[in-house]
């Protein structure tokens, strides 16, 4: 039997074994320095990406035939290439870049669900780490932590998962997937880059792959649009 005093004493004894604050403070300072350096690297990568994007856009603009019409018309045609357009001069020119337009930078504020939100939803629904492993087997993806994030995003969107908490995977492989490659592809196809993933992962304090997988999944769900 444990009295309240026993519990107070036990926790007090644990607390008395705490590490030396000065030693931990050294670790904090090192961590702050590492983060600062990482942020500077990310910043430099973002600047490079922006410059490269600008150069591509400028190259495309300068390479476009001058007889394609006034700039306002050309912009309209590029933004929404309508096959029903009756004005030949507003048709998209062959020099239109095939790469997707550079979307605005990914930030926590721009993404409706964070990995922490998604994991919390997974947790709150009664799913455990074992469930995440079973789901990872069903979805053929090596990292159950990524699977938990994607599954949590599904739950937040009101979707059902192929297995209930504590339940074995369906025998017929129903609800199975072939990895989370669609998510990774969606991330790239939206125009996001490694620098975007790094910046968002930094903001979320997660790994880059988690950021890519979740953003890709939200893009596939239609809950995130790269250009608003």
């Amino acid at each position, binding site marked *: *039997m*444990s009295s*309240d005093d*026993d*519990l*107070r*004493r*036990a*926790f*007090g*004894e*644990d*607390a*008395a*074994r*705490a*590490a030396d*604050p000065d*030693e*931990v*403070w050294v*670790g*904090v300072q090192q*961590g*702050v320095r590492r*983060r600062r350096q990482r942020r500077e690297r990310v910043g430099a990568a973002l600047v490079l990406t922006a410059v490269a994007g600008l150069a591509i856009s400028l190259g495309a603009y300068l390479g476009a035939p001058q007889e394609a019409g006034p700039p306002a018309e050309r912009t309209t045609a590029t933004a929404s290439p309508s096959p029903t357009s009756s004005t030949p001069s507003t048709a998209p020119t062959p020099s239109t870049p095939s790469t997707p337009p550079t979307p605005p930078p990914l930030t926590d504020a721009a993404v409706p669900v964070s*990995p*922490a939100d998604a*994991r*919390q939803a*997974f*947790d709150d629904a009664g799913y455990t*780490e074992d469930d995440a492993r079973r789901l990872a087997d069903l979805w053929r993806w090596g990292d159950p*932590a990524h699977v*938990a994030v994607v599954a949590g995003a599904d739950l937040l969107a009101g979707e059902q998962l192929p297995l209930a908490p504590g339940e074995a995977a369906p025998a017929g492989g129903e609800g199975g997937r072939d990895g989370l490659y669609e998510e990774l592809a969606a991330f790239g196809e939206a125009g996001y880059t490694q620098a975007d993933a790094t910046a968002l992962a930094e903001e979320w*304090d*997660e790994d880059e792959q988690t950021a890519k997988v979740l953003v890709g999944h939200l893009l596939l769900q239609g809950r995130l649009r790269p250009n608003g």
Partner: protein
Amino acid sequence: MTSPPPAARVVHPGTALPEEPESFEVFAHRVLPDLLRYGTALAGDRHVGADVVQDVMVRAHERWGRIRRADRPDLYLKRMVTNEHLSWRRRWHTRSVVPTDDVVLHARAAPAPDAADQLADRDDLRRRLAELPRRQRAVLVLRFYEGLDDAEIAQVLGVAPGTVRSSASRALAALRREATTEEER
């Protein structure tokens, strides 16, 4: 942990004392010892406690502009430590770490005979506490170590006070059940 006495400053009559925001370094030195003790009680392990607190302090440094505007930045940090300890990410991160049971360590250390029973009881309680789900242990730490009431615990954990009560009740029942099982052996 008591706050350091404010530095003496000359204030001229009719002049409002300018608000000097506390720097992160001063704040960190003030709260770190208390936060480490709390983190260690929460984790039941010196190294895990230090690791959690260090991670939180690094993140707090980045968000210091926002945190220092909170009513109680120290409580804000305590909440961050609690959430970090309970977070899914950290559970995944530390799931492979299996600390050596204190009972095993004491068996190796061969305690003095007259203190053996007392030590065994304490180790037994510590082992039972270590087997509680993290959230239940957190409720007990906040109640018995921090001395918070259910409403305050609910705020720290971001749950309803009813959830705090049921968690505490389940945790205490599990401890009693375990103790009974041990006595029957």
